[in-house]
């Protein structure tokens, strides 16, 4: 009897183990495929099925931490010339102090990837453009360097390349005499990656930045946006920014 029951237990374990394994075999590829469902083959056009966005929690943004800025500079080869007035800054740390209460906080400020970007409206040649997935970019081949987009951007998010460039990175082409700004690390996003700034923020365990698809209701960013009260900078302009903030 005891021998039989031992066999039964063994059988039972074996069967349930097999069933779990089989179920796992069946589900995992689905989960996996679902995950890479975001990545599109390079030949396919960008669609408006996704809208990339970012949620920044200013409460988690550590004062004195500059990791997102450093990561961006490294990622795009923004080396600078120690001339802060003319060196490019695609993302910067901004410190806010309430004039009434004295409460201070910091947050990273970058291109807000607006749904209705003023930079795109004013660009005479169409060099400033918005992809269907919401990423606002500059086509460096047709930018004439008039800087009207920089006049129009309410976030001061754009930089003009004031210098001769050297040692450019292949995935982040720049152009002297043209305007540039945060690309949401489009070269990473198109390959299913996350922007360098977000990665750096997570690496430090600050997790103040979440990147994802605003159109996907099950994405982490959508969940957080649903749960918490968030705001847009200069919401009065009704630009429907892709970058949202908590805690301001």
């Amino acid at each position, binding site marked *: 009897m005891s021998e039989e029951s031992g066999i039964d237990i063994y059988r039972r374990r074996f069967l349930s183990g097999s069933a779990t394994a089989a179920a796992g075999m069946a589900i995992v590829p689905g989960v996996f495929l679902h995950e890479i469902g975001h990545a599109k083959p390079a030949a396919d056009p960008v669609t408006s099925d996704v809208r990339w966005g970012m949620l920044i929690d200013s409460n988690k943004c550590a004062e004195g931490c500059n990791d997102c*800025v450093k990561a961006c500079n490294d990622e795009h080869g923004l080396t600078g*010339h120690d*001339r*802060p*007035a*003319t*060196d*490019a*800054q695609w993302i*910067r*740390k*901004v*410190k*806010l*102090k*309430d*004039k*009434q209460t004295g409460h201070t906080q910091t947050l990273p*400020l970058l291109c807000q990837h607006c749904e209705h970007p*003023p930079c*795109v*409206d*004013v*660009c*005479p*040649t*169409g*060099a400033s453009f918005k992809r269907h997935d919401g990423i606002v970019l500059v086509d460096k081949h*047709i*930018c*004439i*360097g*008039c*800087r*009207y987009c*920089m*006049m*129009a*951007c*309410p*976030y*001061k998010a*754009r*930089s*003009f*390349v*004031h*210098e*001769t460039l050297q040692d450019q990175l292949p995935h982040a082409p720049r*152009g*002297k*005499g*043209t*305007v540039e700004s945060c690309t949401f690390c489009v070269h990473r996003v198109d390959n299913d990656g996350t922007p360098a700034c977000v990665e750096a923020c997570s690496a430090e365990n600050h997790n103040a930045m979440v990147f994802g698809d605003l159109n996907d209701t099950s994405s982490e960013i959508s969940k957080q946006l649903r749960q918490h009260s968030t705001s847009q*900078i*200069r919401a009065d*302009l009704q630009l429907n920014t892709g970058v949202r903030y908590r805690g*301001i």
Partner: protein
Amino acid sequence: MKQVDYREIEGGLPFYMLVGAIGVFVLAALGAAYYMEHNGHWVTGMSNQVIWGTPHVFAVFLIVAASGALNVASISSVFGKTAYKPLARLSGLLAITLLVGGLAVLVLDLGRPDRLIVAMTYYNFKSIFAWNIMLYTGFMAVVGVYLWMMMERKMNTFTRAAGMTAFIWRLTLTTGTGSIFGFLVARQAFDAAIMAPMFIIMSFSFGLAIFILVLMALYKWADRPLGDAIVFRLKNLLGVFVAAVLYFVIAYHLTNLYGTENHGVERFILLDGGIYTQLFWIVQIGIGSLLPLALLYGPGGKSRLWISIACLLTIIGGLAQIYIIIIGGQAYPMEMFPGKEVSSSFFDGVVASYTPSLPEFVLGFGGVAIALAATVVGTRVLRFLPVSLADDQVDPHHSATDAA
């Protein structure tokens, strides 16, 4: 009215010396543009904070003045004041040359001036800049046709129609120029509908000031008679325009002052903005508006010297006004976080500093030089200037019967 006799100005050594002297400024400007493009814009005073600098001040001034310079012709063709008719050709010529000078500065300051052809072939029709590219090139064509109608006797019957078209076009053009700033929602000092009409009235004033100066200089140079009748008419009109600009400036600031959200930027321009406040009160209002009014309408108003000085001061005041609008408007920090003190490595929350560099000034003056050189050469090769503008040639009372 007597038949007006138009003649080219004399050639010879003095003419070439004049063109050569102006040409030096044009060459210097080309050198400055090359220097800025070769090194990149970091060698200028411009930065990621003050994006448009002195070249834009000159460019916008010249473009605004260009449309205003056409007014004299419009008064003759559209409003039937025949006393202005002998001046209409010069008015049309100056309108084109000033525009060319302004556009040259604008293009040479681009980050990629070599891509001018891109600006001509790629259009984003939502951009006011793109509209302006068409308005500017169209203006030159329309005024060119207008001049042809005026200068070709067989075509004279079409002068009024062409003049009307040019008049409407120039109003549209200056509306477009003012809207470059009027449409900018991002910055506190811009984003105001009054920009468009204010730029129109500014064009009346700056354009006429330049017209009077060029007219007097050319007639002195060519040693042709220029009577008081026409000069006094023009200077009285200039006074009206200077006062009208002042009115618009007051309306703009009063409207802004009423809303609390604009108190910061108004305080900056009117009270504690350092150089911008000084430029506003001393140069734009004092030297550039009130003093010319006193000179034009006061006892000195009969003197050619004082009239010239008044015109010059109006121009200086106009440049200061555009400097304050463009550069002052950028120097004041953008209001992104109301109620907060803002600081960053990117000059957020602080007044941006800007010191114009020499190459920027040289490029700006080069635009003026291009306009003047083209005007002088134009009057040499074609019949723009009447042989005489003496009082007996220009009957100011003729318009009443003509208009009736």
